[in-house]
Structure formats: structure tokens, C-alpha cells
């Protein structure tokens, strides 16, 4: 045997087993990516995440500067600090990307998500749902005799909490926008 101790016929010596197990803690980061509003730019950003195996927990996008044709993409992603750095560097080098802000690192930020929840029920459950909605400051935007659609805005945690409470009370469907976020202060 050679000093290398490679087992005969082994197939484990793949060309791709090079990453060491630097297991660090995964963090959630909210990134604001300012891009040129052109066809294909969103696909390019999403393609980066899928192509390089990064996570997307939520993503929102809309044009925010109509005269300058700039869109703001807010991405909530997860990864070790090294992966987050790499995501930001990869985003920054894209030609149609103007700026990348890591709102998680740049100080406190405001994060809001809008959700619509359809809850069906009658009797006590229906009353209970309405009372809880008031506590959570959710608005009723549609009502029938056996259902409500609640609209609420808040952090993803708050929406999760409300949805959890609604589940036993007849929660049928949820639509969520994903996070929009801005840095606090100037």
C-alpha cells in the first residue's frame, strides 16, 4: 500500500469532497438588494441562490423608484457567517445590482410583513377569532356568516403567532407577502 492509503476501487475520492466541515452556527440575515428594474434581473438573483445552493426564506420585490427604474429586493436568507459574506459578495458583483445592504448587520431595522388569513367557524370559535384579531390588531377585510378574512401587518414572528392561534379556530388559508425591511434612523 502507498502512504496515501487509498482503498482499491474506492469511489469515495470524488473531486468534490473538498469542503471541510467548518460547522458554524447558521444565522438569518435580511438583505436589501437594489437592482436595475430590467427583465431577467430577478431571475438572475434567484438563479444565484439556486445555482450556488443558498437558502431563500422569503423574498419580496417591487419597483421603488419609477423614474430611476430601480427595484428593491428584500431577501431573508440563512447561512453561516462565511456563507452570508459570500452571498453578499456574489450579489454585489452582479452587473445589474446597484447596492446590497445587510440589514441584520447595519444596525436596527424595521421588518414588516403583510398577511391575509381566512378563518372559517361559527359560534364560540368565531367570537374567539374576532377577539384575538383585535388583540393582534388584525383588520377584518372580508366577512361572511361563516368566515372572516383578516389582514394583519407585523413581524414574521407576530404573524406566525397569530396563525398558530387561528389554526384551532378554523384557519383555512394564509397568503403572506414576505418581509419588507428598512434600516431604522438615517
Amino acid at each position, binding site marked *: *500500500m*502507498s*502512504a*496515501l492509503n*487509498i482503498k*482499491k*476501487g*474506492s*469511489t469515495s*475520492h*470524488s*473531486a*468534490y*469532497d*473538498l*469542503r*471541510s466541515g467548518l460547522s458554524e452556527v447558521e444565522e438569518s440575515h435580511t438583505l436589501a438588494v437594489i437592482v*436595475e428594474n430590467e*427583465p*431577467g434581473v430577478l*431571475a*438572475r438573483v434567484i*438563479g444565484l441562490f439556486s*445555482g450556488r445552493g443558498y437558502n431563500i426564506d422569503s423574498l419580496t420585490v417591487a419597483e421603488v423608484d419609477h423614474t430611476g427604474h430601480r427595484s428593491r429586493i428584500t431577501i431573508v436568507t440563512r447561512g453561516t457567517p*462565511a456563507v452570508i*459574506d*459570500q452571498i453578499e*459578495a*456574489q450579489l*454585489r*458583483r452582479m*452587473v*445589474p445590482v*446597484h447596492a446590497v445592504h445587510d440589514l441584520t448587520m447595519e444596525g436596527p431595522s424595521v421588518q414588516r410583513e403583510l398577511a391575509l388569513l381566512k378563518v372559517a367557524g361559527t359560534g364560540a370559535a368565531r367570537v374567539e377569532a374576532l377577539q384575538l384579531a383585535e388583540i393582534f390588531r388584525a383588520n377584518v377585510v372580508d366577512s361572511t356568516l361563516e368566515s372572516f378574512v383578516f389582514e394583519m401587518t407585523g413581524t414574521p414572528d407576530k404573524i406566525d403567532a397569530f396563525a398558530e392561534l387561528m389554526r384551532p379556530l378554523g384557519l383555512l388559508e394564509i397568503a403572506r407577502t414576505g418581509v419588507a425591511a428598512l434600516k431604522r434612523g438615517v
Partner: protein
Amino acid sequence: MTKQMTGAKMVVQALKDQGVEVVFGYPGGAVLPIYDELFLQNDIRHILVRHEQGAVHMAEGYARSTGKPGVALVTSGPGATNAVTGLTDALMDSIPIVVLTGQVPTFMIGTDGFQEADTVGITRPCTKMNWLVKDTAKLSETIHQAFHVSTHGRPGPVLVDIPKDVQFATADYVPAEKAKIAHYQPRTEGDAARIAQLVELMEQAERPILYTGGGVINSGPRASALLRELAAETNFPVTSTLMGLGAYPASGKNWVGMLGMHGLYEANLAMHGCDLMINIGARFDDRITGRVKDFSPRSKKAHIDIDPSSINKVIHVDVPIVGDVTKVLEELLRQWRARGSKTDQRGLASWWKQIDEWRAVKCLTYKPSTTTIKPQYALERLEALTKGMDRYITTEVGQHQMWAAQYLGFEDPNRWMTSGGLGTMGYGLPASIGVQIAHPEALVINVAGEASWLMNMQEMGTAMQFRAPVKQFILNNERLGMVRQWQELLHGERYSSSWSESLPDFVKLAEAFGCKGIKCEDPKDLDDAIMEMIRYDGPVIFDCLVEKHENCFPMIPSGKPHNEMLLSADAEAFRSGAVLV
């Protein structure tokens, strides 16, 4: 003053304004208006290829040997999809090329029209940037932007998809100087404070190494000149990746040879044992690092790269410097000289002594033969017989490529064109034609393996048509040599589909194309045969029958660190041990 013209004319005008002299391409329905315009002018030469993949590799060969962007023009659908391999190759190796594709008319997009493909969708991950132009008014500006993006920052391939109705319609031409490019201006100046940090580390280093890569070549000839100055002033050893060969001359005093999976023993051990690694325009590719955890464990690392995403991607570095190699080296040398910096002479002397000891192992030694041509011998003779000539080398991918990198010496940048990152078999023949078109008088040799070469052999027709006297030096072992080597070493000698069976007679093939064929199988005839190839005024297919079971060493099996390199002697032991099981 604006000028009205059709989209097709705009394309040709924009190419002229960008200084394009040659376009490699293949016509088809969706680019006919552009071909019509090419027909009506004489400034831009069109090279008709035999397959669109060939066009893109030719553009790459042209770009790498000149430093100017290469241009390819292909039609929609299959024309565009055939370009994908070349685009990906150029993306991995950071080669500036501009590919123009025809597209079905805008009103047909999305209807599954004849020869329709979602070209921008398909090529998005394999271009630095791409555009679908739906309005003739934006066409010329987009082409100018494409050239700017391709050649600025880290170079790369770009693609402009042009629907046929956009080629027919008329609009104002936007000249290059009026095109909006302001937004994409990557940083090229290195941070002076970081460079000062590096200068300090260089003063203290006892076992430094300059680890150079393709970024030095891409940065232009000035970068190579500065690298040579830096090596001369510091007496630091220089190693290079496959991509960076020629930036520092192989005959240079400080040259320790190529590093990496099939790099030299002394280069890899110097990387492993150094205390200061200065990465100049390389990217810690997995073929370089081996097992990341054990990569050069005791060194401080500095990394000069124009692409911030290359830094800390694979290897964490102590001194990151984002910038263009030329500008960073200028500043580095300025600071070094201004401080009156001195290296640690004693440390360096013992470091060189250590390197010389590693060198004495003579890792490129092979068993000579008087009866069969060893591939290493063939390359040694090619090197000896072409030394000092105005020589450009391209390669295919595999064992021959690694042997070429090991046994040929490169004195200047832009003389070595090989598919590094993507490892594209079939690259070398079209690339050699692209190089020859750019340098009609030079000696251009494609060092090939027979299997790779067959992948794009149709381009011999292009070489003949355009009188590109490229020399195809095929090391024919009738095997997919590198696959066979891995199967021998790692897959229990089960040679699954790695024989090149039913090979053509290469001499007859050459005759069929109308060029010269030479066959050589006796080492005694080799020199004369090589000289015959060099002297022949036209394309040559040289069938060099070599030892069939030769392995390429040294070798760091993937996933192993640098100091666990396999030398040829080890391999013999390895193989005999393996037989017992």
C-alpha cells in the same frame, strides 16, 4: 450627430466602433439580416466555423492570445444552445467574449416558434450578463454596454440576443461614447493600507511564495512585467496555476513550476510549507488546494483579486486586496521601494535551500523507452525543437494537457490557451484556429489527445478554408487517458468505457480534409517528424502514437493535502500493492 440605420447595420457598426476585426460565426435564419450587412463591408472578417461551439472556442482563443474581446455570431435556437459550452468555459476561465445570437421575431417569442429557444434564460447562469433586445433603439447601446461589461472588472462572456424584427427595424445609432455604462465600474485600485500590511508581512517572511494565476494574464502584459520586477526585487519563489503559465517565465530564476493536482513536487510542498502566501490573481480552485482543511496550514495569506467574491470563498485569507493586479502590484512595488524594504535574507536563503532539495527529487522523471514514444518525451522534444520560436500552444483536456503544462516552458503571457475551470474536451482545436487567425505568422500548436480532438475535429474544415496553418499534435494513446488513470488508481482497474475504439486513420483523415497527415510511432523518427510538421506551410494533423498506459504524475488525489502527493515511484508501489487484493 445621430444616424438612422437598421438594427442589422447597427450591429456591424457597433462592432467596428468597438475595434472588432474578426467575427467567428455560423449563419442561420434569425441572423440573416446581420450576415447581409457583413457581406456588404470589408472591415470585419467573418470566419465561418463548422459548429457553433467551435465559434465560441475560437473567440476564446482569439481573446486569450490578444487580450482583446473575441466575438461570435450565431443563430437562434440550436445556434445559441450550441454556444452554451463555450460560454460556460469562458465564464469559468474569465475570458472576455461577446456572443451575438439571433432570435425569432419579438411577436413570435413564447410561441415555440421554429428555432426558438429561451436564449437569455438558458445562458443566464453561464454569462457574466446577457440581454434580450426588443427595441432597435436600444440595440447599439446594448452592444456597447456588452463590450464594456465583458472587458471590465473580472472579464467574462456576455451575450446579446437580437430578434429578427429588431434587426430589420430602423432607429438612431448610439455611438460607443454616448452609451450608458457609468453604473458598472468595478474597483481596480487596491486599498493602500492593506497593501502596506502585505509589505510588512513580506519584510518579515522567512518562507514566502508568490502564487500567481490567470488574473495576472487577464490584467495585461504590464502585470506580468510587474510580477517579474517583484520577483527580482524580493527573490521570492514564484509558482503558478495552470491558467497563469507564462506570466512569470519558465526560464526565470525564481520559477518553481506549476502547482496543483498535477503540479510540481517542489511547488506544492512550497505552498504547503510557506509562512507567507501571496495569491496574485488566482482563486484557490479545488485543483490547487486539495483538502481545504490542510491547505498550507502555517501560512499568512494575502489575496489580490479584482472579484471580491473570490476572496474568502474557499480559503480564509489574512490580507484581502480587491483590485486589478497591475494597479495593486504598482502600488505594492511603490510602497516596497519607498520604505526601502528588505527581505529576510537568511530566512530566504534557507527557504531556497529547502526548495532546491525538493527540486532534487526530480518529480518529472519518467521511465524512458527506446521502442515506444513516451508522451513526456514527445513533449520534451516538441519543447526543444520549438524553443525560441514565436509559439502559441493550445490544448484539449486530459493527461496531455497536464503533460504539456509540465514539460513545455512558457516565457510570455498570452501564449498558453487551455480550458482550466470547465475542463472542456474539444476546446483546443477551435481555440488554436482562433489564435492563428489573430497571429497569422506565428507557430500555433494544439497539444491534443485523440479523444478530445475528435470532439471538434470538424473545425479542420475551418482551418483549411481560412488557411490557418494550425498544427494538431495528437498524443494518441487510444485511451481516454485521464479517465483510464483514475480508473486504474481509484476504481479497481475497471476500465469502464475508457478505450478510444474504432479510431480513424488520422493521416487519411488529414488527407480527406486536404491537409497534411504525419504518423509517428518510433522515438527515433520523432524529431524529424516534428520538424516536418513545423516546416509544413499549412494545417497538419500529427498522429503521435504514444505509450498507452502512461500515468500523469505527480498527482494529488482529490481530497488530499499537498504533502500527500503521489510521485511516479509511489504509484508503482501503489499498483503492485493493488494487484494483491
